[in-house]
């Protein structure tokens, strides 16, 4: 790693102030950033650790909305009972040690195309709350490793409208255990949403054709005639584009069946 300082602010305001420095980078749980730093693939002069900020931690439910602090680790999300599909998703990210450190805000700020959380955020139409504004899920994800966040913007919380029913189905990439394909299907107040992670060169996306079909008829058979274009899929040693396109369909079907 290159040399850098680590600051440990105790409030969002302090963190934001520290991040005004152009050479500063926010540090969430570090489960992705630290390995990246070890490879010297990033050279911040200052890391601003968000894990000591109490106001960014914790989970609450109010009026059908689950609010999760940006610095909340996966293990706590996995333990909440108000949104079981999200709990199941969080409980299957990485491994137990990673879940104790990795945070929802860190994952969403990174927006790895194979990460699990983006599918839940997009699949429920959640709201990303930052120190300056609120960003709708549909506006937040802008391609792999790219988001609507400004440089000194911190995800302080994520607000999930708890869907009537939901399921996340993940097919593991066998080495990293990230999603080779993960599909989040939710029955929301505004209709069915289907969000797919792991599959696309453009990162997480909504499979709108499936949503339309499922809004007409919420049965896995509704997908029968749908084909997902393999062209924009990721193709690598773990699976061809065609395989990923196929898995999107299979995982979507499984999610629908799990919802029942």
């Amino acid at each position, binding site marked *: *790693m*290159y*040399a*850098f*300082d*680590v600051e*440990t602010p105790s409030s969002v305001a302090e963190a934001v102030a520290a991040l005004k420095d152009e050479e500063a980078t926010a540090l969430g749980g*570090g*489960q992705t950033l*630290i*390995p990246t*730093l*070890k*490879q010297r693939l990033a050279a911040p002069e*200052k*890391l601003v*650790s968000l*894990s*000591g900020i109490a106001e960014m931690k914790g989970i609450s439910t109010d009026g059908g909305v689950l609010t999760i602090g940006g610095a909340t680790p996966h*293990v706590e999300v996995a333990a909440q009972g108000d949104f079981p599909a999200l709990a199941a998703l969080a409980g299957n990210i*990485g*491994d*137990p*040690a*990673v879940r*104790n*450190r990795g945070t929802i805000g860190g994952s969403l700020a990174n927006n790895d195309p194979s990460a699990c959380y983006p599918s839940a955020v997009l699949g429920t139409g959640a709201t990303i709350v930052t120190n300056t504004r609120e960003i709708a899920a549909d506006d937040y994800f802008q391609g792999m490793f790219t988001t609507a966040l400004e440089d000194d913007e911190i995800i302080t919380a994520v607000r999930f409208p708890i869907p009537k029913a939901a399921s996340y189905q993940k097919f593991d990439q066998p080495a*990293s*255990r990230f999603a080779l394909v993960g599909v989040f299907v939710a029955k929301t107040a505004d209709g069915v949403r289907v969000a797919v992670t792991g599959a696309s060169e453009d990162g997480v996306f909504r499979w709108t054709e499936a949503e339309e079909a499922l809004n007409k008829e919420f049965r896995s058979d509704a997908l029968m005639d749908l084909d997902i274009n393999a062209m924009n899929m990721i193709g690598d040693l773990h699976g061809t584009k065609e395989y990923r396109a196929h898995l999107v369909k299979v995982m979507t079907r499984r999610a629908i069946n799990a919802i029942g």
Partner: protein
Amino acid sequence: MTQVTMTVNGKAVSGEAEGRTLLSQFLRDGLGLTGTHVGCDTSQCGACSVHVNGKLVKSCTMFAIEADGAEVSTVEGEADEDGTLSTIQQAFQEHHGLQCGFCTPGMVMATKSLLAENPKPTEAEIRAYLSGNICRCTGYHNIVKAIMAASGQDVSAIAAE
């Protein structure tokens, strides 16, 4: 350099750390606690697993500064003062749950954390919990068996002894 203070295996310690000093480096190089091993650089092998404030973490994926003020437990703190092995350690020895020993400290710490959360885990729960701890020697058979035994389950029906 920053002065970092923490409690390691019940003893107050302090030492200097750079921003980039990992907790694993602080333990190994700073405190000479070389039982915590480093087997990869992508946060997957789990040989460096320790507990920070009672939670299982990969000490190679956390900065020492982030552990300032924390309670840290490493494999060196698992046996009694007189050297008596803990229940988990005894089960690993009894059931040949280790060969080269390199992943073992991480396995012991992961097991401790698993059994604290789930005192009687099933085989499937054990296997799932170990997804962040890679062993290349044992094929996991005897590790899983040892953990079942450490949790007080009868392992006599599990093949091969």
